[in-house]
């Protein structure tokens, strides 16, 4: 039997931390490069890429790229649009998808299993294949707003929110979680005369904290980071553009890379803040789903 001394334990711990620090540094490099580059003029930024200077705040450092980025694009508007679209979509999605999952798991209606299977099968359909039919559909949909009845959803927030509220992955996450909750709780509530809504509202959802966090995080990252093609084809006015379409403002004939990095740094702030606040839930969500955001 090997004897583990305090020295060898310390050494193993040191090696482990060294490896973790190295891996952590590799993952941090792109972020550090982005932030450091955002303070440099383009010529220096490009010449620094061939050395470690790329990751250091050295040379001609200033906030000029940030000032120029704000002149080039309405960054505040784009960030607001993306945050607004993300928050509304996520809240609505959590509510409606959890309701759907509740129905699939507990209400035992005829055909629910088949419908769930069909819905899950939609996960394999890439969005690109339905983008054009969906565009044609939303461009003719009616809406009753402040100006009365109108047709066409283009150039609105709703066209960037409503098609994304219901999604099979979020329903699936809730279904899996609800299936693991003790059935006795539901049956007891039914015996006590609780309605389905009361069971959903007072029994199931208060126990669903972990899956709510998981679904919210995955959905938020998708809505904030990946919304490009859809807004590109359904939003033609600047007032409703999200951050990813806004990135295009920085790609002119001669790209000013410092400004690109400044823009990317700015739009990363809400994501970093979101991550720092929900760090534990974020890690738990990845561990529980095996899905990287």
């Amino acid at each position, binding site marked *: 039997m090997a004897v583990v001394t305090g020295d060898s334990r310390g050494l193993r711990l040191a090696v482990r931390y060294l490896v973790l620090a190295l891996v952590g540094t590799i993952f941090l490099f792109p972020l550090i490069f982005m932030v450091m580059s955002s303070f440099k003029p383009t010529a220096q930024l490009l*010449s620094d890429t061939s050395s470690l200077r790329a990751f250091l705040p050295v040379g001609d450092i200033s906030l000029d790229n940030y000032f120029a980025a704000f002149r080039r694009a309405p960054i505040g508007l784009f960030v607001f649009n993306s945050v607004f679209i993300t928050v509304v979509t996520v809240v609505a999605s959590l509510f409606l998808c959890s309701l759907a999952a509740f129905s699939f798991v507990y209400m035992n209606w005829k055909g629910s299993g088949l419908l769930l299977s069909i819905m899950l099968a939609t996960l394999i359909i890439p969005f690109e294949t339905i983008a054009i039919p969906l565009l*044609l559909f939303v461009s003719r949909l009616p809406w009753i707003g402040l100006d009365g009845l109108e047709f066409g959803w283009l150039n609105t927030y709703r066209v960037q929110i409503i098609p994304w509220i219901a999604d099979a992955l979020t329903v699936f996450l809730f279904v899996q979680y609800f299936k693991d909750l003790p059935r006795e709780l539901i049956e007891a509530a039914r015996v006590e005369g609780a309605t389905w809504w009361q069971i959903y509202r007072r029994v199931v959802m208060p126990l669903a904290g972990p899956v709510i966090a998981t679904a919210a995080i995955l959905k938020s990252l998708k809505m904030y980071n990946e919304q490009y093609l859809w807004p590109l084809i359904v939003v033609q*006015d600047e007032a409703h553009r999200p951050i990813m379409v806004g990135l*295009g*403002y920085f790609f*002119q004939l*001669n790209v000013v890379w410092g400004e690109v990095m400044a823009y990317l740094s700015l739009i990363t702030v809400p994501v970093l803040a979101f991550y720092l606040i929900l760090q534990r839930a974020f890690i738990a969500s990845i561990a529980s789903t095996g899905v990287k955001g």
Partner: protein
Amino acid sequence: MNRLAVLAGTILVGLAGPAAAQTELTMWYHGAGNEVESKLINQIIDDFNASQDDWSVSIESFPQGAYNDSVVAAALAGNLPDILDVDGPVMPNWAWAGYLQPLPIDESLIAEYLPGTKGYWDGKLYSVGLWDAAVAMVTLKSTLEKYDIRTPTLDEPWTAEELGAALATLKDSGDFDYPLDLGMAWTGEWYPYAFSPLLQSFGGDIVDRDTYASAEGKLNGDEAIAFGEWWQSLFEDGMAPGTSQDPADRDNGFNEGKYAISWNGNWAAAGMLEVYGDDLLFLPAPDLGNGPKIGAASWQFGVSAASEHPEGAAAFIEFALQDKYLAAFSDGIGLIPATPGAAAMTENYKEGGPLAVFFELSKQQAVLRPVSPGYVVQAKVFEKAMADIANGADVADTLDAAVDEIDSDIEKNQGYGH
């Protein structure tokens, strides 16, 4: 009495109001994020709106990279504006697809315009541009003098042999990473825009322009194969960096002395002038056997097929065609003004100006990319073939495959209306 007068006045104003109101025209533009360009186009719009009482133009700008997709999506959704700007080589596709209608302007206004600024499809004018772009071989006087290389002129450009000898001399000097930078890092439209004229100078082409029905014999004929072998040799012999070129080197390599000659556009000239000043030289394209050629056509204005007010849209475009606006755009964003009169008003393109040579290059050497709706597909096929050959693929096989792909696309689209 007073009340009656107020009521009568209100009715009169109400009646007169609609008659005097300007009809609103919408316009889409690709320049979102370009401060200078936005300021210039907004100035033209403000001037136009103030100049008459019939029309009022409002603009929506898009990021350039997203513009074409946005227009195509809007056309599908029936949401096009009155006035569109369109990239010259894409115009035939949009006209053929029914996104544009013929441009009802007085064509005598554009008689003196550079050929690359006029967009004709099926015998009709669909678009017109305020500027053009051109490509040149950019180098330094001091470099040519140091290595005793003849300075080519528009009348006497380098031959293929002279170009080869110059590149060999520059390579043998060991002073440069590569003697020639073709810009292989700039993927996309740069490839057909910058490289298909070299193919044309060999005598080949992307497609047979007599019929636009096939690329057979043009993209895989003897001349095209000779071009392909020459093209491949540039990379195999270490004359030019290939597809793995660092984009940073493309942007900055010439200014850092890594390359002796850069095949580059006039839009990059201002930055080079800042670095090298009077030592900078813009050389004409070489004559590779069938005359020197460069690409042509940049962004142009047209009227969307959905516009219910083509006469208003055309009135705006005619208004924008004034030399003062052409000159302002050129001074602002560095592109070549469409007319000699406007060129004379600019800092860079007036006689003796640092970029004046580009006006002549555009006038004398420019060749439009294939004027066909199928060009948008052909451009991508050509780009892939050029990259594959640069990476060592068999020249004849690659060009044959490209021809098959282009011909198949033309057939699928029933000849694209030619």
